[in-house]
């Protein structure tokens, strides 16, 4: 737990563990953590758009906030919690092998290249 902001860190996702998980991130490592985090959130936003959902970071960049078009929001404490929460909100499995999702991502890529 962070004594300053009261954030609980119950789990560090394996993909965020290339930085030393025993160290409090600061300076350069905190910049790197934020950059990686931003890249992750940006990609997840592209994926979730296919399911009519959006995602953003909370102020401390430790939790993810998922939302749908009805204004419902869910907080996910780690990347591992994002996908079950998204599936609940979307009412269907959020599957990276789904052909329609892959076509959606390719269309986005083609759009940004143009």
């Amino acid at each position, binding site marked *: 737990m962070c004594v300053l902001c009261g954030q609980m860190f119950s789990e560090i*996702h*394996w*993909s*965020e*563990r*290339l930085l030393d*998980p025993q160290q409090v991130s600061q300076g350069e490592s905190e910049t790197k953590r934020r950059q*990686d*985090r931003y*890249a*992750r959130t*940006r*990609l*997840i936003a*592209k*994926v979730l758009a296919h399911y009519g959902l959006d995602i953003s970071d909370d102020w401390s960049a430790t939790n993810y906030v998922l939302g749908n078009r009805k204004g419902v929001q869910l907080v996910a404490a780690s*990347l*591992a919690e994002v*996908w*079950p929460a998204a*599936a609940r909100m979307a009412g269907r*499995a*959020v*599957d*990276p*092998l789904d052909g329609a999702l*892959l076509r959606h*991502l*390719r269309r*986005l*890529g083609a759009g940004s*290249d143009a």
Partner: protein
Amino acid sequence: MTAAGRRAVTVLSGFLGSGKTTLLRRYLAGHSGAGVVVIINECGAVGVDHHLVRMVQEQSVVLQGGCVCCTRREDLVGELRELLDLEQSGRLAPLRHVVIETSGIADPVPVLFSLATDPVLRHHFAPASVVVTLDALNAAAQIDRQPEVRKQIIAADRIVVTKADLAPREAIAHHRIRVRQLNPTAKISVSRMGDASEVLAAGAAADADADADHVRRLPADYDPGALSTHAGVRSIALGFNVPLDWPVFGVWLGMLLQVRGPDVLRIKGLLDIGDAGPVVMNAAQHVVHPPEHLPAWPAGADRSYLVFITRGIDPARIAESLETFQRAGGRSDLRVRELA
């Protein structure tokens, strides 16, 4: 001890009568009093004469909402915590290595799951490798008929074909092919009277040079079209033309394992993420070992690869999905190709 200062844990598995205890006895004979503790789930026909053998009764608890690999091995969690207590109170010499010999029909993945998720154990113990023994005399029938044997082979980092002195050479060559079909990443040793026991050593699987050697050999005898006869179990080895984007890879793999975890039986590889050294990936079902970032490329290995063993999933779809995600995440020039 591992590099991170945690105590190494080797999981020794293998079907009933496949020579686990013989291998273990031989290993202990050479490592007596060296901080090695053995946890045994069942009493075999061959006794283990070692002063630090602990017998435990298997107690598995399936977590609510979890699949089979989300089974917590309460017996092992309790035993390992007790070992820590004994060590820290000075009643046990410093622990360096724990060998867990599972019962013949046990699935090794819940052992890894328990180590990775227990809030105390994960700071003190690190899985070193899963070693699986395969009886050279009975392997063919056991692989065909026993789903437990296939699970053990898929979860293995190392396979030891035992009783090699009793089986014809052709049979052993055939077993190698069958094992490679199920798990192209496993290193295979052949043992006579337990003489390959050093595969149990704490540093055996963490040996980066051995890994590199294995990568070199992978394309030579790996048949990418090899389709196992077992319930749609297939494997694919993927290579990449440019370094992968690590945050994007984390998102993709996390998502894949969340939805398809029970059918992604194994992932193993060495990934170039654009740094000086690669990242070692190892996952058994959806239990992902914390990725290890090597400071430099191991000798002999100079390229990324990633092997997937799946059940009921078209491996080509995995390659397509990984490439699409990487491109959507900014690596627009990345191409994923099947290693041949």
